[in-house]
């Protein structure tokens, strides 16, 4: 358990680092596609956090095994009986399935966001001739100035 205590801040730290990095890419990149990629990293790192919550030490994937099957016995052989009795379900220790389900949904949502975002980017490129954020802002500013001059 001491090893797990050392690992805890490390793995959460990595997860939070990925969140911050993804957010940074999504907010600051000049290339619009790179912004979307950053957004994807940000969404995935939220998933990392959920999955970190799901792991049970010595557990296995949440597919129920028969208690006396060879696979279940092999898994049980490396854990002590008290641990299995306390945390196992019918003699086998499983990881928590709920975060897995949630993150399956979140991955799908990420793919959907990516598809719509890319569709908008394709249209932006056709309309403005560029996917550089700064250039688009400059083009818009110029258009606005032209309108103002027409008025004057």
């Amino acid at each position, binding site marked *: 358990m001491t090893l797990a205590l050392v690992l805890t801040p490390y793995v959460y730290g990595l997860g939070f680092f990925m969140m911050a990095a993804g957010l940074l890419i*999504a907010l600051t990149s000049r290339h619009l596609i790179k912004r979307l990629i950053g957004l994807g990293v*940000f969404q995935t790192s*939220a998933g990392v956090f959920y999955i970190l919550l799901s792991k049970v030490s010595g557990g296995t994937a949440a597919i129920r095994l028969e208690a006396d099957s060879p696979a279940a016995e092999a898994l049980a052989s490396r854990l002590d009986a008290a641990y299995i009795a306390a945390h196992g379900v019918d003699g086998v220790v499983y990881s928590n399935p709920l*975060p897995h389900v949630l993150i399956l*949904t979140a991955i799908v949502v990420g793919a959907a*966001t990516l598809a*719509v*975002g890319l569709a*908008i980017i394709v249209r932006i490129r056709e309309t403005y001739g560029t996917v550089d954020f700064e250039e688009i802002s400059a083009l*818009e500013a110029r258009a606005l100035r032209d309108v103002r001059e027409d008025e004057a």
Partner: protein
Amino acid sequence: MSPFAGAQFASPEVIQHAPALLIAAPLTAACVAALSPSARWAWFASLGGALVSLWMALCLAAEVARSGAVSYAVGGFAPPLGIELRLDDLSVFFCLLVSVMGVATSIASASLLRLELPERDHSLMQAGFMLAFTGLLGLTATGDAFNAFVFLEVSSIGTYALVAMGASQDRRALTAAFQYLVMGTIGATLFVIGVGLLYAVTGTLNMADMAERLAASSSDTAAIAGLALITVGLALKAAMFPLHAWLPGAYSAGPTMVVAFLAGTATKVSVYLLIRFLMDVAGGLESAGEGLLTWLIAPMAGIAAIVASVQAVFQTETRRILAYSSIAQIGYVLLGVTSGSVAGLTAALFLLFTHAMIKTVIFLSLGAIDHRGSRLETLAGAGREAPWTIAALALAILGLAGAPFTAGFLAKWRLLGALADDGRIWAVVAIAASSLTALVYCGRILETVLFRTRRPAGATISEASPAALAAIWFLAASSVWYGVDASALYDLARQAAASVMGASP
């Protein structure tokens, strides 16, 4: 007394399943709209979906008035294992808001779409609109924190593309939609991380269960962080100052039916979730919810009320003026929410509902006379060319300015009263200053449409179609009616506020 007490709109068998039908009906309508061969059939599908939802919302309002909160275990699994749809007074209030605006937008949508987009896109536009409608209704009805995220995305994903469809009129719709997508996704992801933190502390996703376990938990740093993330995420979605940058672009460039619906509902539903999480789920953590409300949201709302109003004065495009005014109004509503009293929350909810009606009228009528991202001056003389539409628009603008005998006036008056009673003089000053500023831009719009004459070069403006006029006038007339006799809506709002604050109405 709720105005729905004693009413019964359907047989008990239907009412029993109303929470699920409320969401499943528009979802089915969206699929039918996408399948339909012509724009006309898609319109019928969307209208049908919206009407069934409104019917179900009315049934639920009556049911909640009769027997308190309704809980529906989807799939037959009791919470916390299954997903629970839970409707109390507060959610029913927002259900009614969303479905009324949905029906109004849907009625007007066919003629609005004809003005803006080629026929072949209409059925998909209706499908996208119904999906957004489904998502917002799901948000108000769900009692499960992660399910709320799913519906947040259902309502958003389609909306991003719908906003971008404004590009056929105004190319800025594309960049606005992209910014909306990035900001909206960041907001939703922050929300889901926050829910994850609450899940890490409580081990459950059901909101009621979460509230109980939070109250019992010993250490709450992670829970407070989770609530803070949820607050920031929802503030992004609600366009709370200073996270509002995406809203003016999206409102000014999107297609009318989309903007009218979003302006009336999307930011409002985010406010609902904010209330739900900070006052209900965090109820056990007195310090956390109230701390966030008092020290984060209230000051920002005060600044929003003033800054956004001033920004609105300096805009030249009609829709941008209105977008900034929406940001200011969200500020008013949040000031009421943070007041911490039943009266304040009631006034805030009342203001929220009337403002939704007013903004929907304004955007629908602007779209119906074919006035989009263009400048205010092009509206000059509109009053003479399209008297019926402009009359409704003028009524709504009067309501926005807070003229007496409109619902807008009554709402602001009660809000100011409630805030003054709580001793929040700074909030009263902020709202008063903002309202005075609002007079400037509302006056400008009114003056342009009513008294100016059209420049010779300007395009003619034609009256809205009968269907659109019906929708516009229905909402405009109700906003005037609630200005004269507010009791029905006000009682509903008070009931909702009382149910959150845990006080007897």
